[in-house]
C-alpha cells in the first residue's frame, strides 16, 4: 500500500510539485492580507478598549441577532423552494432558478437601492405600508431584509444542487415501503444532502454577517439599531484606523467561529447519521 502510494507520487511528481506551488501561492494570496490584519490589530494598544466599548458590543450583538434571524428565515423558506426547483419540471420554476441567483451578481449598493424602491417609504409596497403606519427603512427589520436579499441565494443554490444530486430511487423506495413523504424527506433526503445544506448554511451566514452595501443604503447607520459590525468598521475607518482594524479582527473571529462550528457540527452529524 505504502509502496504503491509512493510509486504513484513519483509518477505524478511534476504535477504534484506544481500543485503544491499553486496551493502555496493561493494560501499566501488569501492568508497574507488576513495575517497582516491580525498582526496590525493585535499590536495596536487600543484593541481591548475597542472590543469592550459599548458601541462595539452593540454592533456585535446586532450583527449576531440579525444574521441568526436572517439565516433561520432563509433556511425555512429556502429549503422547500430549493427542493421544489430540483424535483419539478415546471418551466416557471426553471426560470425562477435563474432569478434566484441574481442578488449574487448585483452590486450590494444596487441591491440596497432596489430594496428602497420596493420597501422604501415611496416604494411600491413601502408606500401603502407607510399609510398603515409601518415604515421599514432605518429599522432593524431593514437590516434583516437586506441580509436575506443578499445572502439567500448562497443557501438556496447549494441546497438545490444537493437535492438534485441524490438518487431519486432512494426516495421512491422509501415511499413504496409506505413511508410518508415527510418521513422520507427527513430520514432520506435531508441526511443524504446534509453536507451540501450545511455548506450553503455556512456561506449564507457568512454573507449575512458581512453584509454592508445594501444595509447602508436601505437601513442606514444607527448605533444599536442598524449599525452592524461592517458598518461600524466603515464608520471607524474614517477617523481611527486602529479601531477599524480591531473591529475587523473581531468580525473575522466571529466569522471563523461560525464557519468552524458549522463544519464540525456537519461532519459529526453526518458520521452519526451514516
Amino acid at each position: 500500500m505504502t509502496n504503491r502510494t509512493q510509486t504513484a507520487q513519483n509518477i505524478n511528481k511534476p504535477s504534484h510539485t506544481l500543485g503544491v506551488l499553486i496551493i502555496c501561492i493561493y494560501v499566501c494570496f488569501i492568508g497574507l492580507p488576513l495575517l497582516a490584519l491580525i498582526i496590525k490589530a493585535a499590536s495596536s494598544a487600543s484593541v481591548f478598549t475597542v472590543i469592550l466599548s459599548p458601541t462595539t458590543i452593540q454592533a456585535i450583538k446586532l450583527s449576531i441577532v440579525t444574521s441568526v434571524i436572517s439565516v433561520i428565515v432563509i433556511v425555512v423558506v429556502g429549503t422547500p423552494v430549493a427542493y421544489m426547483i430540483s424535483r419539478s419540471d415546471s418551466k416557471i420554476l426553471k426560470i425562477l432558478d435563474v432569478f434566484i441567483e441574481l442578488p449574487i451578481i448585483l452590486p450590494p449598493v444596487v441591491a440596497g437601492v432596489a430594496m428602497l424602491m420596493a420597501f422604501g417609504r415611496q416604494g411600491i409596497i413601502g408606500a401603502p405600508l407607510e399609510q398603515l403606519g409601518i415604515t421599514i427603512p432605518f429599522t432593524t427589520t431593514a437590516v434583516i431584509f437586506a441580509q436575506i436579499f443578499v445572502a439567500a441565494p448562497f443557501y438556496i443554490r447549494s441546497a438545490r444542487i444537493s437535492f438534485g444530486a441524490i438518487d431519486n430511487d432512494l426516495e421512491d423506495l422509501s415511499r413504496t415501503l409506505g413511508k410518508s413523504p415527510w418521513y422520507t424527506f427527513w430520514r432520506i433526503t435531508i441526511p443524504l444532502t446534509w453536507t451540501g445544506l450545511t455548506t450553503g448554511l455556512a456561506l449564507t451566514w457568512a454573507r449575512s454577517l458581512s453584509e454592508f452595501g445594501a444595509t447602508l443604503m436601505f437601513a442606514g447607520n444607527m448605533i444599536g439599531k442598524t449599525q452592524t459590525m461592517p458598518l461600524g468598521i466603515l464608520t471607524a475607518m474614517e477617523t481611527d484606523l486602529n479601531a477599524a482594524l480591531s473591529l475587523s479582527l473581531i468580525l473575522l473571529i466571529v466569522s471563523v467561529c461560525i464557519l468552524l462550528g458549522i463544519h464540525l457540527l456537519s461532519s459529526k452529524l453526518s458520521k452519526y447519521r451514516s
Partner: protein
Amino acid sequence: MMQISHGAQVDIYASADLNQISHLQRSGTIDSDPILFASNKLSIIVNNRNIGKIEKFNDLAGDNIKIVVAHSSVPIGRYTERLLTNLAPQSITPKDDLRKLIYRNIVSYEDSVKSVVMKTVLGEADVGVVYSSDAQLEHVMNHTYTIDIPKELNVTGTYYAVKGQKEGNSNLQNEFLTFLQSDIAKSILQEYGFDTE
C-alpha cells in the same frame, strides 16, 4: 487622507477638514502650508412631501420626523454636530428639549453627505443636513426645499488645498494653487454654491 498617510503620491490634496491636513503635516507627509480657497455653509433640506408640516427650524423637533445627518467621522458630520451643539444655549423653548427632540428624530448617521442628499431627495428621510452647495443642485431643488437655519447657529465649513508630497511637478502644483485663488476659480466655485470670501 488614509491613502496619503499610507504612501499614495498626490499633487494636490484638498480637504474640507483642516485637521486632516494638520495630521499629515505633523506626521511629516506634507510640508507646505494649506491655503483656504472656499467655504460652505450648512443647509437643511426638506423633502417636498413635508410642505406645511416642516416650515421652520423648530419644526425639526416635531413628532414622526425622520432626519438624516452625516456621521461625525466626516467633516460635514462634525459641522452638523457643532450646529446642534450651538443650539443648546439659544433655544427658545425649554432649553435642552429642542436639541434632545431633534436628536431623537435622527434616524441615521450616513457615511457621506451624498447619502444624506440621496435619502432626503428620495423621501426616505424627511430632512437632511447638507452643504449649501448640495442644496443648490438642480436635482436636489426639484425634490426638496430648504428651511432657514438661525444665523447664530449655522456653521461654516472651510476648504483648504495643500501641495502633496509627490515630487517633480512643483510648477504645476503652484500654478494650480494660484488658480484656485483666482477670480475665475472663484466664479466657478460660486456658481456651485460655495462662498469664496
